[in-house]
């Protein structure tokens, strides 16, 4: 190559590296900056989570939660102190009020995203946590309020955790861990802890879901035995501690006497009692639009030759639903008047 083309090449290279905003260096810098911001925000979440559980975080616990070397964590803590986000007393880390406000923002973003991913994008439950983890850092306060409004101001995330309000208050978490629940009788699953992921996957794999009505059959130090009336579930106590339960609310008692629309026999008529709480967002709106409201009489009319979907007659219209959709509508069989 001629010297001239070398010079042009070098100049082009320099421009590619040092060009503001789009150059290699600028891109790397903004990448580093956003990475640092995400680490700070993750640290805030960890501190907040600890304080919610009545404990204080330490540099060790923070290093574990962020999965970073101690040196880096020390640097992050120093940075956060200068920004006025936390106070460190010896080995104890405490959020300042400003830090708490920011932490609530991140928690709110995370849980609203989880709600969105479940209701609107309909992602499987075991995938939403990591996706929300990626997205929680990107929204401003105003954008978050818009998301909140678009989702209809939900109060709980898909795991049953309360979502902070826009005013910055966090409703109390409800429920008692399954391992600590003592009373007899039917109970309802109100929260499934999604961390650690392994335990969460075991819970989902066992077939338990939020809002399910269960009964404790037997407990021993090795396992807890549950039933929903049909299937028996066996959980190790360590896993069961991640499942929180509460007494049945009134609607649940109604549901207890109902069967799901999918179980309704071909020649039966049913009256809709309630739409399952697990159906939210898009699917719920669709159901309501189609007139699947409580009190409506519905009966199966047409069976697909593979058994799924099935078409139901509602208010004179014929509507086909897949089995898993029909399983989310609770009905009470009613007498056929012939």
């Amino acid at each position, binding site marked *: 190559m001629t010297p001239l083309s070398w010079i042009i090449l070098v100049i082009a290279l320099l421009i590619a590296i040092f060009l503001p905003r789009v150059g290699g260096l600028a891109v790397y810098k903004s990448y580093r900056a956003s990475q640092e911001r995400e680490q700070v925000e993750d640290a805030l979440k960890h501190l907040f989570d600890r304080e919610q559980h009545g404990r204080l975080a330490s540099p060790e616990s923070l290093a574990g939660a962020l999965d970073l070397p101690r040196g880096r964590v020390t640097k992050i803590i120093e940075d956060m102190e200068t920004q006025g986000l936390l106070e460190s007393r010896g080995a104890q880390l405490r959020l300042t009020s400003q830090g708490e406000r920011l932490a609530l923002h991140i928690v709110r973003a995370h849980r609203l995203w989880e709600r969105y991913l479940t209701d609107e*994008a*309909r*992602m*499987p439950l075991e*995938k939403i946590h990591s996706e929300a983890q990626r997205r929680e850092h990107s929204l401003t306060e105003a954008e978050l309020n818009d998301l909140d409004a678009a989702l*209809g*101001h939900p*109060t709980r995330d898909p795991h049953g955790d309360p979502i902070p*309000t826009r005013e910055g208050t966090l409703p109390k978490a409800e429920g008692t861990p399954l391992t600590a629940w003592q009373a007899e009788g039917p109970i309802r699953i109100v929260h499934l802890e999604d961390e650690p992921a392994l335990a969460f996957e075991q819970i989902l794999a066992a077939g338990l879901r939020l809002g399910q009505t269960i009964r404790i059959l037997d407990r021993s130090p090795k396992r807890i035995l549950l039933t929903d009336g049909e299937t028996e579930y066996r959980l190790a106590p360590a896993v069961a501690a991640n499942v929180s339960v509460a007494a049945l609310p009134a*609607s649940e008692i109604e549901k207890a006497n109902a069967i799901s629309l999918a179980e309704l026999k071909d020649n039966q008529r049913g009256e809709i009692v309630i*739409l399952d*709480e697990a159906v939210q967002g*898009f*699917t*719920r709106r*669709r*159901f*309501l*639009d*189609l*007139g699947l*409201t*409580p*009190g*409506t009489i519905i009966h199966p*009319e*047409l*069976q*697909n*030759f*593979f*058994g*799924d*979907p099935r*078409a139901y007659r509602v*208010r004179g*219209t*014929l*509507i*086909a*639903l*897949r089995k898993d*959709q029909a399983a989310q509508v609770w009905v009470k069989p009613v007498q056929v008047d012939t």
Partner: protein
Amino acid sequence: MEANDILAKAESLRNNLSTGFRDEIVKSLYTEAEQIARRAVKVGVNKKYDFDQKVDRLVTSPYAGLPIMLILLGIIIWLTVSGANVLSDTIANLLFGIGDIGRNFFNSLGFIPWWITGFIWDGVYLGLAWVISVMLPPMMIFFPAFTFLEDLGYLPRVAFNLDWLFKKTGAHGKQSLTMAMGFGCNAAGVVATRVIDSPRERLIAILTNNFVPCNGRFPTLIMLATVFVAASFPPALTSFVAAGTVVGVVLIGVAFTFLASWILSRTVLKGEASAFTLELPPYRRPNISRILYTSIIDRTIFVLWRAMQTAAPAGAIIWILANIPIGDSNLARAIADWLNPFGLMLGLDGVILLAYIIAIPANEIVVPTMMMVYLGAGMMIDGPSTNAAIFDLLVNGNGWTMLTAVNLMLFALLHNPCATTIITIYKETKSWKWATLSVVMTLGAAFLVTFTTASIARLFGWA
């Protein structure tokens, strides 16, 4: 009170709402509507209801359901293909006749150089005329027939019957309808995906629609099926064998649709098979004027207009390529020769690839462009008039084998969407990302499949 006060008040009251208040709102709306309806509507014994039920039982029954569907699809495609043949010739004669008059007029003026006459009449005009004459007739038959079934209320039953298959691949049962629409035109099929209300399933339907061969690709398939497959059967069977081959290719396309849907819903479009709610409206007598309006104005004219916008420049480019001399040949031939090694690797040849590159605007002109290059002509032309002569030209004159024919059918089925469809995908998704993916995905599938069949055929010494 100021607007802001009201908003603030609503904000504070919202926290006290019970979670099910939306359900209550809808419930009260329905109760109100029911009360009004009870006062206004008298319900007597309904004979039509019984009849509808009987028909529904029949068209969704295990034994009759699928055959009825296939027979209806068969009838529509047969009507389209055979009816279009007659109409196409008439329109082609008319339009090409106008072209001749125009060319003669330009020539008789004397002062217009040959290349302007050629560019306008043998390039732009011929491209337009060709696309219209090949495209318009099948659409004029297919769309009304399709709209007839739609108006009748039969199509939702098809979605109902086939939903289990789509559920398995993570897609929506209504995708069967958009696929059926794709037989008419993939761009129209992409627009038709608006009936799918969940975004993820709708994207799957959009991206895979191209695996259903549209009217524009039928001529290529029919030509190959007639010349290569049906030729080895007795003449009485020719049309049936040709039709059977085309149906076979269509089924391969359907299989690819399912495969692609399955892969998409496990990779870029991850998610559960979501809410499937489908209304099965009562059957009603089709309204002829509405059918004609929807099918002609909304569908045929819409598609034709978009196709014409891309066909005119394509005609121009084809003419330029065929008329720039290089040595004792032309630019088209030179590019085809250059593409040839790659084409042969895929079991095709350079001319076919060139034809598909130029025919991105409209698949209708693939065959005439191929014939143009093979025959060294200066404009798009019909091939030889008899099947035997076409066979002779391709096999003896240009080294085609059975592999070339099979792979061209596969390539015609799988290759990238035409420009009209790509633009429509962009307009429907508002994203170049999805439009690009639709091209990359289909083209990748086409290259992969043809390369595999070519390699296998060569390995076993078939080609």
